[in-house]
């Protein structure tokens, strides 16, 4: 006997919760190469974006002051949860992106590997890129990288799961919090991805995921004064130029490079600040 499937309502992911967009707007997405409805996705508004920034800002002190070891375990937990959610990731990749099962599995493998890679970096990047500086005088002087703050992330237009996950996790690995505008093509990935985050002891607000229109949202990212870093993976000259011009308002740090290497300390370094502390030596 055919049982009618219970299908999932896909919502946004803000502050660890799953709200619908306050605007009530949705965008229909379809099974690839067909007219069959896959889901109504939320079309996030400027207000949703601002609420995400508020959540990310509020989560920052707690997340950045966790021990690096603790953050590492939480990121590793994400890998564990993602492995268990493989079927749902495959479902989105195959049904909405038209990927073969083999390709989809490769993407999920790589994404999980990225989670493990950065889970192991939370307590090491400081050692690799920090320094004790031999100043010419009786002072102890050391430099440590520390998180920058709230980072906005514009994912590439077409979903590439390993690249998306690598960016999110490399940004939060140092203690930043992030809001990601998901790819318009492949946005349904928000469902399994947000559930992985929600079940891995990642505190609410550390990662916020939005679906909606890039064109509508990026100008508000550019001018938002609480966003200090922007990862722009859109490879769109108009977007990056606007981000630079408007972002100068509060000197946003903008990275437009799409790193060839998903597993690379460079991705962490894009969103850290180096702090140098001096103290005299003497009695």
């Amino acid at each position, binding site marked *: 006997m055919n049982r009618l499937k219970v299908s999932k309502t896909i919502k946004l992911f803000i502050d660890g919760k799953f709200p619908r967009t306050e605007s009530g707007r949705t965008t229909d997405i379809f099974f690839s190469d067909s007219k069959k409805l896959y889901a109504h996705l939320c079309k996030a508004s400027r207000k949703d974006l601002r609420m995400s920034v508020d959540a990310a800002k509020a989560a920052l002190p707690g997340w950045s002051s966790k021990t690096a070891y603790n953050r590492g375990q939480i990121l590793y937990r994400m890998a564990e949860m993602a492995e268990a959610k493989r079927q749902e990731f495959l479902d989105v990749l195959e049904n909405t992106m038209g990927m073969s099962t083999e390709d989809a599995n490769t993407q999920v493998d790589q994404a999980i590997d990225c989670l493990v890679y950065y889970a192991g970096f939370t307590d090491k990047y400081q050692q690799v890129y920090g320094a004790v500086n031999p100043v*010419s005088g009786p002072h102890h002087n050391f430099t440590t990288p520390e998180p920058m703050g709230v980072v906005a992330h514009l994912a590439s237009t077409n979903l590439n799961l390993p690249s998306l996950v690598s960016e999110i996790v490399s940004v939060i690995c140092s203690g930043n919090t992030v809001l990601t505008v998901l790819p318009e093509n492949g946005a349904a990935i928000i469902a399994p991805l947000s559930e992985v985050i929600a079940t891995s002891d990642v505190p609410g607000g550390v990662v916020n995921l939005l679906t909606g229109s890039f064109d509508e949202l990026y100008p508000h990212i550019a001018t938002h004064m609480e966003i200090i870093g922007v990862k722009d993976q859109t490879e769109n000259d108009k977007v990056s130029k606007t981000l*630079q*011009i408007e972002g100068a308002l509060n*000197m946003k740090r903008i990275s437009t490079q799409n790193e060839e290497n998903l597993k*690379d300390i460079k991705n962490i370094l894009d969103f850290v600040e180096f702090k*140098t*502390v001096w*103290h005299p030596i003497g009695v």
Partner: protein
Amino acid sequence: MTRKKLNQSTETKTASTPFVFEYSPAPQETNIVKIEKKNKLFIDGKFVAPKSGKYFATLNPATGEKLADLAEAGKQDVDLAVKAARKAYKNVWSKISGEERGRYLFRIARLIQERAREFAVLETLDNGKPIKETRDIDIPLVAAHFFYNAGWADKLNYAFPGHQVSPLGVAGQVIPWNFPLLMAAWKIAPALATGNTVVLKPAETTSLSALLLARIFQEAELPDGVVNFVTGAGETGAELVAHKDINKVAFTGSTDIGKSIVQATAGTNKRLTMELGGKSAHIVYEDAAIDQAVEGVINGIFFNQGHVCCAGSRLLVEESIQDIVVKKLKRRMEELRVGDPMDKNTDIGAINSKEQLNKIHSLVKKGREENPDFFESSCPLPKKGYFHRPCFFNNAASSSTVSRVEIFGPVLSISTFRTPDEAIAKANDTNFGLAAGIWSEKGSKIHKTALGLKAGIIWANTYNKFDPTSPFGGYFESGFGREGGRHGLLPYVEVNS
């Protein structure tokens, strides 16, 4: 005892003060320096007259008298300089080994040391800062920056673990007037060590030491075009950063101009380093060694007339010790010697320009309208030149002008706090994030505070210390990128995957 009282006692010559030593100046001779009357641009290894045909005067701010004429580089001159730098990059500087680049930089460092006093005197004449600072701080650090970076040139493989690096190409650099030669060294030394070539625009009021540095480059036989100097004002700088054939812009200066440079270069692939303004907090806890802390606060705000981007211009003092700290500050400020920068005893020299002095006056005026709790040293000021007394606003509200705007002069704002959390919150209540100071005898409190402060440089139980091995640069609207240390190489290289 205040200066006024001291003077009175000199006049009365009572029996209780049998003798008082009269002040004797200790002037540094200036004949070690020869200044050309009419200065040219330094392009492709030669001094050349500007195609623009224009010149402008540079003054000694301590007297207001003209020192020399400087060439004003126009669009065509900037273009020639960039072409020379590109040619030198392609044909020479990117071809030779890191070891070879290092040799030139070591040579430059040594030549600067040999002519250090000459540089110090010239810098003081042109900038107005005390000779004791140019002699003991600016110029030694200039040499040290070249020496430090020289050693990196053939060791870049060790700089960024797991990655190879390559140079960017031609760097366009624009520097301010507060540490003229030191800023040139901060910019040029890492750029050259990493294999880039340079076009640098010094500040229009302080270009003479850069032109003497050009002579050093000639003496060191640095290949033509590796470093080029284009003198001029804002327009020259704007031409430089907008030039299509530069790969990198490094700017030190005001936040407003920094923002306009970011906007002007938007949509290009130019890499940027921005060292901008600050309104750095200086926290004094009640368990600090108070006399040392007062000395640190004095140094933090009055060093270099307060013309320091990282000046500790906001004193946050724990409420329980406010009165004693303010009393000690007043006493110490009365002892600061303001005047002839060429006098080896001078603590506070001349404000760099009439324009800057006017800006300070207007901000102090606004400050006094908002808050009458104002104190300034009673010291006499020289009749000629541009000078300003060291001063402070006590009980300054966090929202007041003097607590928020970078004054870039010898003006301190003072407010209080009750708990470490409040101190950190107040310190971070600014759009800037360049530096901060902490005074406490308790180590754990210092580390907690340092961790909470959003600033690139934290001086604990010290202030305004600089070193070529120590990265310098800010958070937020104080800019991005670091100068100095291993981290100071990063803005000048492509880190390859």
